[in-house]
């Protein structure tokens, strides 16, 4: 297993996995739909933001996806692909902040899936 792959997994976990379910994870139990929409918008549309600008979760994954090409078919990477595809589909509605409660739940689940898959991938590659 190359160091490059391990580094790529660490970077993916940090850049995407850490922030994709960041606000939603901090939401209180009694949060309403508006709170969820705001948190999802922040986590998925503005996944990374700082002085260098804003980058969405989908854009980050598209940027780093090729780093894992050497892995071939991998359950965790495929899992992230699938979850990102589900997010991509609902992004236009989320960007307009017109998301239904059901889709908000689907997005939250997909973002948790990305975070968990990237953490699992990083752990697995470190142990090899």
């Amino acid at each position, binding site marked *: 297993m190359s160091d490059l792959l391990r*580094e790529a997994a660490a*970077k993916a976990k940090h850049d995407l996995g850490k922030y994709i379910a*960041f606000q939603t994870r901090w939401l209180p139990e009694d949060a309403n739909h508006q709170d969820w929409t705001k948190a999802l918008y922040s986590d998925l549309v503005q996944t990374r*933001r700082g002085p*260098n600008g804003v980058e969405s979760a989908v854009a980050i994954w598209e940027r780093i996806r090729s780093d894992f090409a050497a892995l071939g078919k991998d359950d965790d990477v495929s899992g992230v692909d699938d979850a990102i595809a589900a997010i991509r589909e609902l992004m236009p509605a989320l960007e307009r902040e017109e998301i239904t409660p059901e889709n908000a739940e689907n997005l939250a689940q997909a973002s948790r899936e990305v975070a968990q898959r990237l953490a699992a991938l990083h752990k697995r590659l470190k142990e090899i």
Partner: protein
Amino acid sequence: MAHILIVDDQDRYAELCRRAIPEHDYHGPVRNWKELAAALKKHGQRIDLVLLDVHFDIAEEDLIGLPKDATAKVVEQIRREQGLLLLEKLRHRDPQLPVVLMTSRDDLPLERAAEEMQAEEYTYFLDDDYVDASALRTQIEGIVRASRGLEKEGPIFWGRGRRMQRVRSRLLTLALGRLPIILGGPTGTGKSLLARHFIHRRSGRRGSFVAVDLSTMPRELMTAHLFGSVKGSYTGSVADKKGAFEEADGGTLFLDEIGNLSEDAQKMLLSVLQEGVVTRIGDVRERKVDVKLVVATHEDLGAMVAEGRFRRDLFMRLNPACTVKLPSLVERELDYSRLLAFCVEQALAGPYLQELVHSYRERHGLDGKEIRILSDDSIPQTRETVLSLLLSTKSMGQLHRHRWPGNLREFAMTVENALVFTFAELANVPGGARPDVVQIRPKLLRDLLRATQTPDEIEGEGWGTQVRITPADTLNRVASEVERQYFIQLYLIHDGDFRGMASVLMGSPDYARKVQLRFNQLGLKVRDLKNRIA
């Protein structure tokens, strides 16, 4: 409430902390070393905790530790471990500032670094795979509580300086043993406070704490007071009386200003220490006593022995090898801001001041019991419901320039007086536009400090100190000797940290090497001065 500095290339943690854990004051996010150094310079003394990210996706020119002609791969690696490099620099400035690394240990990019971080006492990890607001809140509170616990215990202010932390750990060990303890150091440094509230409490002894101040006791009464007397043993002795040793049996006896002990009392004390028994004046019966003896002096007992003013055999019995010397207040200058907050808190426990502040709060509709301390640049824009005390840069400068001959005691009294006068004056005037911010007027502070002011308290910016001029055959020699003196003082104040000295002398810790070279050129030896720090 804690002051938390966020060091992160992203805005996320800062936004979330401010929203989800609003009870603390957040500074930042700062995104690189330059901004971090500036924030530490501005708020350093007030910061309780640093939240530090590890991966910094920032421009190459803002990275630290980047080798020349670094490849893209190296740049990426430096970005991934930038937080660790920042931590390393931060540690040079403040070895004991609690830092939470916002990453799990598993995520640390280098095994070696992970091991080093785990070994470090004041570095914590935020496993951000699972963290939520309540987990982070609990972690922050735990860290701040632990760190403040080391800084202050009841009426004792230890501060963050290594010297006082070493005093604390040494006393912890000595408190549990059987041997006597000598507390040295100038007057007002808190020797009796330590004996009563730390050594006795930590000794595990169930008996009483008995304190005897030998500086105020007539010498002819010392023996009877310390060792007891039987009826008729001296004129005016109308009944059998226990002495301080018997009163402290099973506990701790604190003899303040032991240098004042009369010759007779020295002889008898030696006998008690040798035999573990005390004989009352005029009696023949020996009484067994088990006493932890703590003695204090502002004098040099060793020199008193050499001059024949103190018995050598008694001195040797007092365990001189383990003398604990407390530093003067000016040697703890780095702790002034924290000490100020501590003294404000202590002063507010007094009933008169409590009443004054309470009625001020009531008049102006201000909540709570806490008083925040502000500097010029941290006044909130709008009126708040919390009462804040403003100490201008000028006032802080006065505190730093003053030589504090009365040490901690004088500092605490000055703070209490300043508060009492300020709130007493305010009782008779209507509140201005910002009654939530109460200023200690620089003139009031100046008046309070005047009584103990020394002629060498230099006005103006920068660090001031006192040096002694001795004539020499060349001006160069005179200048070198003066330079040696302030180098020694700075070395002691900064616990031997050349980076701290460089900050004072050259405005940046990065000049530590230059300062160390000059230190060597002046013929100063680290090993000689290290003993003075210890």
